C-alpha cells in the first residue's frame, strides 16, 4: 500500500516559481488578447511584453538568496538571481527593437511575443535549478521557442538558419540527455549537489574515471553547442546571418548567459572535485575558440558575420574564466556579459536600422562592409556610435568591454594562468583589426552608393535603445564599482 504523499504548501516555497510564472502568464495574456481582437498593433504587444518583464524583474529582485523550493528542484542562489536579472534586462533592450519604422513579418504575429516570453521562462528555469531534468526542460522550452522566433523572420535564409539551429540543437539535446543519463547511472541522482557528494566518495574507485569522462565529455559537447565553442561553433555564423539582426545580437548574449550558468554548475562541480582534465579541456577549447574565431572574423566580408565570429571569440574569452573556477573568475563571467550585452546588442541594433528588403550592395550579403563606407558623411552620429561600439568590443579603455576584459585577465593572473592572460591580450590585438576595419570603412572611405539605405529602418524607440546602449558603453567607468561589488557579493554568497 502506497503512502499518500503529504506536502504542505509552505514547504513548496512557491515564491521561487513566481518569476517564471509571470513570464508564462504574460505570454498567455498576449495569446488571449489576440483571440479577443486580432487587429491590435504590434506596439501594444511590445509594451505588454516590456511590462511583464518589469514585473518579472521585480519578482526576481525580491527573491531571497540561497533558498530552495518546489520539491527542492528550484535553487535560488546568487548566480541564479543575477543571471535572471541579466536575462530580463537583455530582453528588455531587445524587445523595443521590434518597433521599427518599416513593417516586418514576424512582429505582425502576437505569437512572436508570446513565444518570446515563454523562451524567457525557459531560460529562467535553466538557471534556477540544479536538477538535470528541470534544466533539460528549461533548455528545450527556450530553444524550441528560439528556433521559431528565428524562422518567423520571413526569409529563405531565416528558415535555413532555424533548421540548422534546430538540427544542431537537437543533437546537443541528445548529448545532454545521454550525459545526464550517465551521471544518473553513476550516482543514482540527478540533483547536482547529491551527484557531487556521491562522486566525491566514489572518485577513487578503479575504472570510474572512464564513466566520469564519458559523462563530462557528452555534457561538454552539449554546452559547447549552446555556447558556440570550437569545434561546435560552426552553426553560429550562419544562424546569426539568417536571423534578424536584433535576434542575432540577443542570441549572442542571453541564451549564452543561461548556458554559462548551467556550465558553471556542472563543470564547476567537476573542477571542484579535483578532476583536473575537465579544466584542461575547457581551457584548450576556450583558447582555440577565441583564436580561431578571431582568425575567421578577419576574413569576413559581411559585418554581421564578423560580429557573429567576434561574439564566438568573446564566448571563448569568457569560457576561459569558467575554467579558473574562482569567485573572481565567475564574477568575471557575469561582469563581462553585463557589459558586453549593451555593446553587442547596440552594435546589432545599428545593423538593424540599416536592414533593407533588397540587398543593394552585394548579392550574397545583407551588411557588407561597403554598405557602411563613408557613414561619417551620411550619418555622423550613427558612425560615431558604431565606432564607439567597435572600440568597446576591441577592448579600448574606458569603454565597457575593456573592464570586462581586464577583469577576466586579472582573474586569470590571480589563479596563476599568466600565459592565459597573455593569450587573451594577443587575441584582443588580433580582434582589433577587424573592428578597425569597420571603423576604417565608416570614417576613412567614401560612400559607395545612394545613401538612404543605412538608416532605412530608424525610428524613435530604436534611437532610444541605441542611446541607452551608448550611454552604458561610454559611462561604464561610473557604474563598474557597484556592479562588481554586487556581482561579487551575490556569487560569493552562493559559494562559487
Amino acid at each position: 500500500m502506497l503512502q499518500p504523499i503529504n506536502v504542505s504548501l509552505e514547504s513548496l516555497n512557491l515564491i521561487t516559481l513566481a518569476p517564471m510564472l509571470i513570464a508564462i502568464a504574460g505570454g498567455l495574456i498576449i495569446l488571449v488578447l489576440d483571440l479577443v481582437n486580432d487587429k491590435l498593433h504590434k506596439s501594444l504587444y511590445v509594451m505588454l511584453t516590456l511590462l511583464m518583464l518589469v514585473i518579472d524583474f521585480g519578482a526576481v529582485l525580491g527573491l531571497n538568496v540561497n533558498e530552495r523550493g518546489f520539491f527542492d528542484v528550484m535553487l535560488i542562489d546568487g548566480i541564479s538571481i543575477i543571471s535572471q536579472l541579466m536575462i530580463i534586462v537583455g530582453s528588455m533592450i531587445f524587445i523595443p527593437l521590434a518597433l521599427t519604422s518599416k513593417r516586418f513579418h514576424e512582429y505582425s504575429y502576437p505569437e512572436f511575443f508570446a513565444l518570446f516570453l515563454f523562451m524567457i521562462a525557459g531560460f529562467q528555469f535553466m538557471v534556477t535549478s540544479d536538477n538535470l531534468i528541470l534544466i533539460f526542460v528549461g533548455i528545450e522550452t527556450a530553444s524550441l521557442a528560439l528556433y521559431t522566433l528565428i524562422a518567423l523572420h520571413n526569409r529563405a535564409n531565416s528558415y535555413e538558419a532555424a533548421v540548422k539551429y534546430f538540427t544542431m540543437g537537437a543533437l546537443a539535446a541528445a548529448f545532454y540527455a545521454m550525459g545526464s543519463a550517465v551521471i544518473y547511472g553513476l550516482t543514482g541522482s540527478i540533483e547536482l549537489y547529491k551527484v557531487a557528494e556521491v562522486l566525491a566518495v566514489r572518485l577513487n574507485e578503479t575504472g570510474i574515471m572512464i564513466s566520469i569522462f564519458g559523462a563530462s565529455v557528452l555534457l561538454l559537447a552539449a554546452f559547447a553547442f549552446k555556447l558556440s565553442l570550437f569545434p561546435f561553433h560552426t552553426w553560429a555564423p550562419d544562424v546569426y546571418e539568417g536571423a534578424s539582426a536584433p535576434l542575432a545580437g540577443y542570441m549572442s548574449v542571453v541564451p549564452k548567459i543561461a548556458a554559462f550558468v548551467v556550465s558553471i554548475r556542472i563543470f564547476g562541480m567537476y573542477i571542484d572535485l579535483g578532476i583536473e582534465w575537465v579544466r584542461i579541456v575547457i581551457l584548450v577549447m576556450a583558447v582555440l575558440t577565441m583564436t580561431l574565431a578571431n582568425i575567421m572574423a578577419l576574413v569576413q566580408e559581411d559585418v554581421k558575420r564578423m560580429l557573429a565570429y567576434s561574439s564566438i571569440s568573446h564566448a571563448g574569452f569568457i569560457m576561459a574564466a569558467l575554467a579558473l573556477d574562482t569567485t573572481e573568475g565567475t564574477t568575471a563571467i557575469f561582469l563581462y556579459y553585463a557589459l558586453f550585452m549593451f555593446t553587442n546588442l547596440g552594435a546589432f541594433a545599428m545593423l538593424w536600422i540599416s536592414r533593407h528588403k533588397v540587398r543593394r550592395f552585394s548579392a550574397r550579403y545583407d551588411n557588407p562592409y561597403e554598405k557602411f563606407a563613408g557613414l561619417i558623411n551620411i550619418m555622423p552620429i550613427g558612425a560615431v556610435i558604431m565606432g564607439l561600439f567597435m572600440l568597446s568590443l576591441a577592448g579600448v579603455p574606458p569603454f565597457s568591454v575593456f573592464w570586462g576584459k581586464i577583469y577576466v585577465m586579472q582573474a586569470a593572473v590571480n589563479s596563476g594562468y599568466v600565459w592565459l592572460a597573455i593569450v587573451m591580450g594577443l587575441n584582443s590585438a588580433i580582434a582589433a583589426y577587424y573592428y578597425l576595419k569597420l571603423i576604417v570603412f565608416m570614417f576613412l572611405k567614401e560612400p559607395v552608393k545612394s545613401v538612404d539605405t543605412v538608416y532605412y529602418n530608424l525610428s524613435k524607440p530604436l534611437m532610444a535603445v541605441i542611446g541607452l546602449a551608448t550611454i552604458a558603453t561610454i559611462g561604464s567607468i561610473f557604474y563598474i564599482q557597484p556592479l562588481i561589488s554586487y556581482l561579487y557579493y551575490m556569487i560569493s554568497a552562493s559559494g562559487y
Partner: protein
Amino acid sequence: MDNILSVLVFFPAIAGLLGFVVDKESARAYGITVAAIEFLLSLWLWFSFDTANAGMQFVELIPLIPDFGVTYYLGVDGISLFIIIMATLMTLIGMMSMSITENVKNMIVTLLFLEMTMVGVFVALDAIIFYLFWELSLVPMLYIIGAWGGPLRVYASIKFFLYTFTGSLIMLVGMLFVAYVYHNLTGVWSFAITDWYALVLPVNYQLWLFAAFFLGFAIKVPMFPFHTWLPYAHGQAPTIGSVILAAVLLKMGTYGFVRFSLPMFPDASVMMITPIAVLSIIMVIYTAMVAYAQKDMKQVIAYSSVSHMGIIMLGIFAMNAEGIGGSVFQMLSHGIVSGALFMLVGVIYDRRHTKMMDEFGGLASVMPKYAVIFGIMLMAAVGLPLTIGFVGEFLVLLGFYQVSPIMTVLAGTSIIIGAIYMLAVYKKSFFGPVTNEANKTLKDLDAKETWSLIPLVLIVVWLGVYPKPVLAPIDHSVKAMLTFMDEKAITHGAKDMIKEAKSTKEVK
C-alpha cells in the same frame, strides 16, 4: 587651484565636445583659442609648481573602482611637468600652423581629444588610468593619419594602431601581474604607481615584468627593431599628425620607462643596461644611415627622429642623474626640434606638393626666412652648442660615459652622422642655383607660419643658452628617484651601479 591637473586633462575634452557645435568657418579660431588657454593653464601649473619639492605635486585621488584598486590618481613632478607644457605648446603651435583645408572642424575636435589623452598620460599616477589614456590616444591619431594622410594612409594608420595596441596589451598583463603581487603582499588591490614603487620584487619577477613593460614602451618609442611602423606613419600622416606624433606621442614610451620600469624594477633595469644600450646604439647609427639614404625630405626627418630617440633611451639607462636628467631634457628638445622640422617640411610641401629633395635646390635665395629657420632647427637637431639639442645630448653622453666609454663613443657618432645627413639635406635643398622652374616663384613664410615658428626658435635658443630653469626641477626629481632606486635595489650589482652614479654626480 589644487585640481589644476583635472582641469588640464578635461578642459580640452570638454572643449572638443562643445566644438561640435561651433560653426565650420570658426572652428579653427576656436581650436587655437582653446589650445592657447590650455597652454596658459599649463604655464600656470609651472609657476605654481614648487621646484624645491622633488615629489608628486597637485595630487588628486578619487577612488573609482575600490574593489579593483582603480583610483583616479593624478600628480605631477619635475619629470612630467615640462613634458606636459611641451605637449600643450606643440598642440597650440601645430594648430596655428595647420594648413589643412578640408574638414577643419573634425580635425580641431580630434586634436582637442588627442590633447586630453596626451596630458592624461603624463599626469596619471594610476596604472589603469595611465593605460586608459595611453590606449585612447591611438584613436584620434588613427583618424588623423587615416583621414588626412597620403595615398597609403589606411595601411599606415592601421599598422600604427595594431602595432602599439599589441605591445600595450602585453604591458597590461604585466600591470595586472604587478597588481596581483601587490594584492598578495598587502591584501589590498591597488594600481597606484606610488604604491607599486614600494614593492620589492624578486629579480626573476622583475625581469619578466620588465620584459612585459618593455614591449609596450619600446614599440611606442620606437626602439629598433620595433620601429617599422614609424616611417609609414610619418610618411603618410599630414603635417599636424607628424608634429604631434614626433613631439609628444613618442615621448610616452620614453616617459613610461622613466615612470614605470626604472623605479619599479631597478635590478632588472641595471641588468638590462647593456642589451638596451646595444639596441639603442644600433637604433642611433642604423637609422641615421637610413636617413642619409632617403630621397624624401620628410623621411629624413622621420628617421633622424628615431635616431635621436635612441639617444634618449641611452640616457635613461645610464642610471645616473646626468643621463636621466639629460634624457628628459632631450625629450623636450626632441619634441620641439623635430616638431618644428616636420612643420618646416609641411611648409614646403604645401607650396610644391612634393617632399623629394631633388625637386628643390637653391631655396635659400627664394625663401630666405624659411632657410634661416630651417637652418637653426637643423643645427639644433644636430646638437650644435648653444641650441637646445646640445644640452640634452651632451648630458646623456656625459652620463653614459660613466657606464661605458666605448658605447658612448659609438653613440657620439650620431652627432657626426647626424651632421652629415642633415647638412646634406640642407645643401641639396637650399644651396646652389635654383634649377627647377617651379621653385623660382615660391613665396616665403607667411605671417601664420612665421608666428608659429618664431616661438620655437626662441625656445631653442633660450634653453640652449640657459637651460637651468627647466633642468633644475628635472634634476631634482631625477635625483630623488635615483636615491629611491638605490634604496630599493636588492642586488649588489644594481646598488653599485646606482651608487657609483650618485657619487660622480656631486662633482657637477
